[in-house]
């Protein structure tokens, strides 16, 4: 039996459980303590854990990410919240040059068990600088693990695994999905990093996606059902390491693949999945892999342009019709 939680509550429960379990876990970021979080993910945590472990920072992403890396190297388990991943770009030096490389450059001497987390992706009319996805950027970096998931139960299990992980983990959430509700088990559980979830089984086409695009993909799958096309929908949950087994096995059954990815198309997660599938399911494919991404542009403010930019069920259905040769 479970309970219904919002994504923000599930993440909070996951972090709080780990903080109760291990006193070396602390959370740090802008507005996480007294303001209860810019998006209220950390609501009430200051009250429970105190100012030693729930720490408001100045606006200084590079600095507090680096302080997190140092603390992790010296035995603590920091959770670093970025208000959004757009602002974490200032901290990429610490994430990519330091957290990701600590183990390698110390030849295994120093671990860097740190979680960097925050929302990624578009959230309405927030324009160019506040709408980007970072899964592809970070997924390209050896030494990092990358999670991107909006299902409340899975996000809770994954954040717990991330905090216990001995390697640096980047957790990508979603600003507009923090209120998204789902059933979460009562008892304690972990969700392993690196394993995808099949959200819907189907026989005619596989749709692979992650983060909030799962919502668009599920809507498309429902409509496709009405059109007589049975779509299997896979939620990656983890971007790095990629669960290619689940993807390849599904495509070997359906023989067709559409990848839906809010990231830009070039050199992205969708490109990697298309590679995996042509490499390991080539003989099964009945059609070229088709991907549905955000437009290969910066995202402007006007509502008409936001609508044109993002993947949606219509675009996904069109892609499915093309791989099933139902285009007129």
């Amino acid at each position: 039996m479970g309970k219904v939680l919002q994504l923000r509550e599930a993440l909070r429960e996951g972090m709080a459980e780990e903080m109760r379990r291990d006193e070396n876990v602390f959370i740090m970021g802008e507005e996480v303590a007294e303001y209860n979080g810019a998006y209220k993910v950390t609501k009430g945590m200051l009250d429970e854990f105190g100012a030693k472990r729930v720490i408001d920072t100045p606006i200084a992403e590079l600095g507090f990410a680096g302080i997190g890396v140092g603390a992790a190297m010296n035995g603590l388990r920091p959770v670093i919240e970025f208000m959004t991943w757009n602002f974490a770009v200032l901290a990429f030096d610490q994430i990519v040059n330091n957290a990701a490389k600590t183990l390698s450059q110390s030849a295994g001497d120093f671990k860097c068990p740190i979680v960097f987390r925050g929302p990624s992706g578009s959230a309405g009319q927030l324009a160019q600088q506040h709408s980007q996805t970072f899964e592809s950027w970070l997924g390209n970096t050896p030494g990092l693990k990358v999670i991107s998931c909006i299902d409340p139960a899975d996000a809770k299990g994954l954040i717990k695994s991330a905090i216990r992980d001995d390697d640096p983990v980047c957790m990508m959430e979603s600003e507009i999905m923090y209120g998204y509700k789902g059933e979460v088990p009562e008892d304690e559980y972990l969700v392993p990093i690196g394993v995808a979830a099949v959200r819907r089984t189907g026989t005619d086409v596989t749709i692979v996606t992650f983060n909030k695009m799962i919502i668009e993909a599920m809507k498309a799958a429902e409509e496709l059902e009405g059109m007589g096309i049975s779509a299997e929908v896979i939620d990656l949950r983890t971007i790095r390491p990629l669960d290619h087994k689940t993807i390849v096995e599904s495509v070997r059954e359906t023989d067709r693949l559409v990848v839906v990815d809010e990231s830009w198309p070039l050199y992205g997660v969708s490109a990697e999945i298309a590679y995996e599938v042509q490499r390991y399911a080539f003989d099964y494919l009945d059609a070229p892999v088709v991907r549905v991404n955000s437009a290969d542009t910066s995202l402007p403010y006007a509502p008409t342009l936001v609508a044109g930019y993002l993947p949606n069920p219509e675009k996904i259905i069109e892609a499915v019709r093309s791989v099933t040769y139902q285009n007129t």
Partner: protein
Amino acid sequence: MVAESKKKSDTSTKKNSKHKLAYSKEQYLSWYELMFRIRKFEEAALLAYNQQKIRGFLHVYIGQEAIAAGMESALIPGDAIITGYRQHGTAIGRGCTTKECMAELFGKATGVNKGKGGSMHFFSKEHKYFGGNGIVGAQIPIGTGIAFAEKYKGTNNLCVTMFGDGAARQGALHEAFNMGMTWKLPVLYVCENNQYAMGTSVTRTSNVQDIYKLGLAYDMPSEQVDGMRPESVYEAVKKAAVHIRSGKGPYFLEIKTYRYKGHSVSDPGHYRTREELKSYMEKDPVKMVEKVMLDSGEITQEELDNIQTAIKAEIKEAVKFADESPFPAPEELYTDNYSQPDYPFMKD
């Protein structure tokens, strides 16, 4: 310290005593006009947001109008300005029209940036206004670079580089201050210290709460300024500009102000007390300058009424214009991403 002594006499103004205006009548009227225009623009924007005509983030300038007014009157036409996302007032101060600014907030093709930027990103090359920047603190080195280009080209212009108290805690400030001073760049750094960065009081972000002191570590002339009065801002900027134009390098002004509304429309502002807000409301820059003008006897209520009526009509017109303008055509998604017009964007 001209501004300081003026300030004392202003605050001690009694009902009947007449205080001569410290600057020309025209100067006061132009300050007032700009401040009132910004105030009414922002109020109209908040209303339109409630009607869902404006979406996304909306950070208004209400309470900080005296800074835009005082600053603009002390600059010369070739000077540049760059700031953060709380920038409608700055852009209007530069000369962007309320029509094109309102249309931008509405996301319309007639906006100052064709509806592509929205509330955080107004830009205008015509007015040497470099935006409108959404990443906190990023404009500090960029403004330094704009000043670098002025020096490189041998002009007499400077770049006003504006940022908030929250932004002052970014490391980039130190890198920019250091290079700006080392290379004697013509940059005026302006920290609009409205005491809060979202829900975080400036007192919680550093051991050093007088932000102007950050300049002193680089031997940069640095001062604190009353930002609720256009007179004090004008004096401070004028003095700093003389210093900068003489080739001596940057100057830093920490301008103390207050934002009357929440950080953005979604922020209820529970982190500050009602008393605190009230005490600042009593120093409302628009009301204060009104009082200075009327107390002088040199400006009549009727003159102010005329300005108010004209501006209210202007803002009404701006909202109507924004409302009736078309959204950008869907193809506009693919324009302005590269200078090369035929850049092969991936369209599927």
